[in-house]
């Protein structure tokens, strides 16, 4: 049981992931080299490093390095933490969507912008939807027979890993993505969603700890292993929450500085201190 799980995505699966990652990195680096930001500066090195770190973390998480070395419930939890929390934040801070939009030809860029502004994307990328997919997915995995199914079927297991990463990215992007969508809710809503999602995550971790080895159903792991995994889930959730909150408030901090600089400039120029809206998210 735990062997099938410990094999992570299996050699072909993880090689495919590595190949996809390599393509993403090449595309990103090629685009980053050519692009100039709105202020004419080259693409930020910090963004590039964040993206590379995110890709590397995701590949390591599905590689035999994690799967074989730790195996069982612990290995699964490392994958959940890295794919669902660490890698997504790094990837989102790498601003791949901004990079794609800036480097695409004009016609394609228009189509992409329209797609981003479309209703389905707006609904999907709303923090509430993203939070439900992200944390709700975990409830579905650990409180239903789905977990036992991932141990039997490599295909289901892979699908769960892909869901971790995709839902994690969507959630991180809905909260702190550098690309503004017209209908992204304000800071208060996003902080509220972060708190509720983190609380739900911590609650689930404690329930899993308390009800080991009954949960997840049909897991076949030992009690100690499951409790370790639940504790890691809880602690990593804290770290993820602090990291997301830091990214949220750091962006707020930068917006405040820009606003105050504009206000001072406007005053110096003799204009009324207009709180110019930049079309960015409301603070």
């Amino acid at each position: 049981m735990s062997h099938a799980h410990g094999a992570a995505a299996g050699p072909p699966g993880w090689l495919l992931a590595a190949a996809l990652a390599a393509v993403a990195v090449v595309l990103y680096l090629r685009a980053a080299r050519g692009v100039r930001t709105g202020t004419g500066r080259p693409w930020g090195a910090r963004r590039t490093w964040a993206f590379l770190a995110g890709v590397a973390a995701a590949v390591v998480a599905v590689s035999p390095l994690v799967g074989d070395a730790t195996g069982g419930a612990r290995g699964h939890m490392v994958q959940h933490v890295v794919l669902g929390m660490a890698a997504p934040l790094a990837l989102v801070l790498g601003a791949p969507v901004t990079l794609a939009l800036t480097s695409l030809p004009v016609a394609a860029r228009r189509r992409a912008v329209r797609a981003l502004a479309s209703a389905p994307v707006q609904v999907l990328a709303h923090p509430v939807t993203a939070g439900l997919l992200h944390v709700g997915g975990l409830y579905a995995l650990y409180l239903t027979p789905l977990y036992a199914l991932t141990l039997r079927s490599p295909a289901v297991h892979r699908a769960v890993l892909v869901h971790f990463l995709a839902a994690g990215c969507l959630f991180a992007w809905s909260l702190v993505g550098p690309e503004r969508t017209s209908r992204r809710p304000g800071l208060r809503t996003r902080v509220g969603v972060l708190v509720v999602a983190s609380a739900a995550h911590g609650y689930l971790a404690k329930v899993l700890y308390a009800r080991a080895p009954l949960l997840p159903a049909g897991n076949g792991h030992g009690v100690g292993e499951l409790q370790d995994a639940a504790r890691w889930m809880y602690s990593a959730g804290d770290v993820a929450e602090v990291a997301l909150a830091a990214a949220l408030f750091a962006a707020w901090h930068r917006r405040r500085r820009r606003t105050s600089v504009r206000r001072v400039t406007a005053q110096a120029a003799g204009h009324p201190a207009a709180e110019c809206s930049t079309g960015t998210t409301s603070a």
Partner: protein
Amino acid sequence: MPRPRDASRTPVDRRRSMLVAAAVGVGLMAAVDEIVFHQLLGWHHFYDRSTSQVALASDGVLHAVELVLLVAGFFGLSDLRRRAALGRTAAWAGLLLGAGGFQLFDGVVDHKVLRVHQIRYGVDLVPYDVAWIGAAVLLLGAGAVLAARSRGGPA
């Protein structure tokens, strides 16, 4: 980048200084509780089997709020400092009031009302509860004194 204070343009924002520092105070006290009593001393348990589901869920929400308050408070303080609007006395008052307020809440609501967990197990709880709540009252008192002082002086 700290700018010299220009009192005519950016007066000290006493209320906001106290508020964001209180957020940091709550977060800090929660972190001290978590690190010292849960992790180092191992007095409290990660999960107490007598804990009800409601208490467990409310504990989860509280913990998530504490972490966000800590982060939000630090950025709020940094913003005030940048605008030279940070009132030092008011901020210390807020920090102590926040820390004391959390301690009181933890001692009364978490331990006694919700019974999420106790301070220590297998001992007579009264001296611990008295120390816990006494510390809260001391912190709140010190905070109140500083708050009063910050109102009088030039902060």
